[in-house]
């Protein structure tokens, strides 16, 4: 399988005044297409920083990040926006849906920024909502949906552009146990259909669903292991 993500010697240093804080202190990771990877670590370990770098929301202070063969380390904000739009689908802990828009309008947003014509956008948005089991909720606003349903809308939005990478930051952090189960099942299905997923979590039982666990601590990857439960290849 071909390499999707390659991080080499990635460091990230935050400066605030004279204080310097090194959040990532030299990370080397390779993730292949079709992998389901969970990044685990306590808060403050640097996993959110890693998520931001993987999602092209931020640039490393040092080191190289190659996504799908393209070095992103020296791109400007507009080019990074284009990469986020086409290659990465985000699922956030707080769902981040726009409350004034219906489900399908939320889902079509990335397609709008990609410049697709409206009829095609609507069609693809509804198809994506169908895939996450919300085909009958396309015209509901986020406020009219449960937490689990809202997060599924967010997953539909992440998938609608057919991105190379699905990046989920604590996707179950705001869900009850039943919705968490549903969400993890959805991820299992997506993985089974060949999608690359990187999931960031601090919950060990969520992590065990993934085929590979990366444990990060104090800015370094301390453990890189293949799990048995989640391994399905």
């Amino acid at each position, binding site marked *: 399988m071909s390499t999707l993500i390659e991080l080499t010697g990635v460091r990230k240093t935050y400066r605030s005044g004279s204080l310097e804080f090194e959040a990532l202190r030299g990370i080397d990771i390779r993730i292949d297409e079709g992998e389901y990877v969970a990044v685990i670590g306590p808060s403050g370990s640097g996993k959110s920083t890693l998520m*931001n770098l993987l*999602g092209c*929301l*931020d640039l490393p202070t040092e080191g190289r990040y190659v996504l799908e063969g393209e070095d992103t380390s020296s791109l400007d*904000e*507009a080019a990074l*926006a*284009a990469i*986020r*739009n*086409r290659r990465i689908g*985000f699922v*956030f802990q707080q769902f*981040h849906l*726009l409350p*004034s828009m219906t489900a399908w309008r939320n889902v079509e*947003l*990335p397609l*709008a*920024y*990609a*410049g697709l014509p*409206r009829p095609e956008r609507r069609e693809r948005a509804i198809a994506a909502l169908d895939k996450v089991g919300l085909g009958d909720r396309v015209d509901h606003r986020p406020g009219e949906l449960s937490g689990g349903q809202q997060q599924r809308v967010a997953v539909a*939005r992440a998938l609608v552009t057919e991105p190379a990478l699905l990046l989920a930051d604590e996707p179950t952090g705001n869900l009850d146990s039943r919705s968490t189960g549903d969400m993890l099942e959805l991820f299992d299905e997506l993985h089974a259909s060949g999608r690359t997923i990187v999931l960031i979590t601090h919950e060990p039982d969520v992590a065990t669903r993934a085929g590979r666990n990366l444990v990060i601590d104090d800015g370094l990857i301390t453990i890189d292991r293949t799990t048995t439960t989640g391994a399905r290849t």
Partner: protein
Amino acid sequence: MSWWETVRSGLAAIEAHRLRSSLTVLGIVIGISSVILTVGLGQGAQQEVRDRIDALGSNLLIVSPGSSTDSSGVRGGFGSASTLTRADATAIADRDAVPDAAGVAPAITSSVSLVNGDTNWTTSLVGTTTDWLDVRSRELSAGRFFTSAEAVQGATVAVIGADTAFELFGPQSPVGQQMSVNGTRVTVVGVLTASGASSSGSTEDDLAVVPAGTASRLTGSTGDTVSTIYVEAASAERLSAAYQEVQALLATRHGVTTADADFSISTQDSLVETANETNRTFTVLLGGVAAISLLVGGIGVMNIMLVSVTERVREIGLRKALGAAPNVIRRQFLVEAALLGLTGGLVGVAVGIVGAQVLPHLIDQAVAVSALATVAALVTSLALGVGFGVYPAGRAARLTPIDALRSE
């Protein structure tokens, strides 16, 4: 995202905060409507002045004496000299010398006291020729004008203005009545129709018109100087030809060059110009106030856009995470600000137009809504929105997606 969609999402954002948006555009509404009303008032007043002056006769040339210089070298103002004579008027009336003039009326003006029984009234006495009525485009509401025979004899007959008639005789008809002018009995033979117009402050409806010879006698003046010579051009097109002919003729007669002439000729156009200048001053003044309120309105838009950016930091972060480039975000906020401005402009124009219909009933002043001012107001409001939206939109565009997403 297409422009049309950006506009639609901007409208949606404005509608999401209806009260706040309405309060925001209020400043612009007030500014734009006052601009429209101010310009309308100015133009209405100008139109009114033009109408009144047209009613006085737009073909009119008014020849006034120049300034005098006394023995100690003090120069008086225009009209202080006594350089115009009835002979000048007669010369101008010569069709060969001034072919473009249709009528000439010299006027000897002085202030006199009129008495009817125990009522007295001070007015201006105008001594002139029979041409006066035509030259000044006046009409009679009762009686007749004095005849050329009466003019030659210097008969004690007078035609009086409508206001004078009312002040002296009350509601009864003055025609055939006698009044005393500086102690001499004069018969009123006619009353002028009210013109409603005024030039240089004195009403055209308060005067007594008598033959020139009679005027000299009544006021005890000797010599034959006149205060003004009114010349009516044959048509509006021939006004400037008549102007030059009169100027050349008088210069020759007085032995001066046109550069140091001892007389001046003004046209109704120059009166219009003077009146318009006054109006323009007011328009500029009021327009300045309106412009300040527009500025305040624009700052209001900027303020609310900044609040809106702060409030929607998370939305901006999300949109950026989903692939919105900084320029797209900038455009979204600029369009939103422009729409706020334009909405204010449209409402302001509507208020201004309604105001222009209502205001004349309240202040007895015509308001002319000009299409140019309306379009300019709309363009200004749009520009205000964009101008004051640049900074907030730039702030939104510069937000980094992680900071924006992280904020609560």
